[in-house]
């Protein structure tokens, strides 16, 4: 013979089911919002891959012909240079395409970012920016550079090899990496989507790269 459940036990069970239902509802949304909030200054098109201790792959570009760009990057001579030879502890890489509307819309904000960094004596030698034009010819990269008056060096990646090494599948993508004196690297930032706020982006870079903590010490 089965015993009849106590009324109080039944109410408690009902409440447990409600709480469980709400927790199930909350779980996925919590995950989504934590991903998007991790980069409040980028309108994300794709969530960031796991951060972890990821190094920057080794890739090369031709040494720029313009003296200003050579001086900015700290690379000289002719031929190719490795990205780890860029004279800076923190490197921001923008993967863009001349054909991408998001990259076009982001261009003025990326210019703001560059000028903000160059305008600060404590940062101009510690953060450098380069752009890599995925699937763009040198002519197309130049068109983009001239159209938006971009002052930092841009390099074509016509066959997409470098962008593939970096794991980029959509544009624009912003990557932040630390370049240590011994030539080792650590990628600390990777987000795809339109840049809409240069000041907050810089603040994120300062926090995540550790430059802000260095300054406090």
């Amino acid at each position, binding site marked *: 013979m089965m015993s009849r459940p106590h009324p109080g036990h039944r109410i408690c069970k009902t409440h447990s089911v409600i709480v469980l239902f709400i927790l199930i509802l909350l779980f996925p949304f919590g995950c989504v919002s934590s991903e998007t909030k991790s980069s409040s200054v980028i309108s994300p098109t794709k969530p960031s891959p796991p951060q972890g201790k990821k190094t920057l792959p080794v890739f090369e570009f031709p040494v720029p012909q313009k003296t200003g760009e050579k001086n900015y990057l700290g690379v000289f001579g002719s031929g190719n240079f490795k990205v780890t030879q860029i004279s800076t502890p923190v490197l921001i890489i923008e993967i863009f395409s001349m054909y991408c509307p998001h990259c076009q819309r982001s261009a003025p904000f990326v210019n703001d970012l560059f000028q903000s960094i160059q305008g600060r004596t404590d940062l101009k030698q510690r953060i450098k920016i380069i752009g890599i034009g995925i699937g763009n010819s040198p*002519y197309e990269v130049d068109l983009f550079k001239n159209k938006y008056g971009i002052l930092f060096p841009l390099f074509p990646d016509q066959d997409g090899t470098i962008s593939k090494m970096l794991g980029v599948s959509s544009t624009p993508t912003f990557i932040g990496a630390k370049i240590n004196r011994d030539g080792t690297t650590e990628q600390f930032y990777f987000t795809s989507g339109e840049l809409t706020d240069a000041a907050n982006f810089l603040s994120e870079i300062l926090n995540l790269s550790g430059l802000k903590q260095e300054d406090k010490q």
Partner: protein
Amino acid sequence: MSRGKYVLSLGLFSLLMVFLETGNVYAQSSSFKDNIYSVGKLKPRDSVLTLKAGDSAPDFTLPVVDGATITLSQFRGKKNVVISFVPAAWTPVCSDQWPGYNLVQGLFLKNDAILLGITVDNIPTLYSWTKQMCNTGEKLWFPVLSDFYPHGEVASKYGVLRSNGVSERALFVIDKKGAIRYIDVHDINQRPPLDALRTALEKLNQ
């Protein structure tokens, strides 16, 4: 408050927070990329070109997104014409091609040329799609024409209609006399580099 009512209130409050949070997440999203339909890798070319450089460009009249119509022969003696056929709205390579052309109006002006963009999509689709290519309140500098009905008639005349009803990714450069001077029926999976089009335009003036 009894324990039951407390749990129920907590539950309702949490549910409300879920909906508020969801709203924020969607408001942050910049959606162009997420709206692109992936077509996968396609057969590079699926049509037989019947025209060649030197042939007279077949005339046509098509409706434009802004409500007007354009006839090719209206440019005869006045402008060189570049026709850019792209396969379909809201697909990967096409969605990147015209935003690039939107940056280079100067290249066309310099060579006394007009660009006509053509797809087999209907006008409302083309309206929404091309709007996503520009900043709010702006539009593409060149007209976008719909070859929707009779379906693909112009693409067919130019020999670039594929067997599934979309056009090839093709460029035709037509001089002021109405003669075709350059044809590039490109691999549908790839964007034609702008360099080749620039060279073709510059040759018009030689």
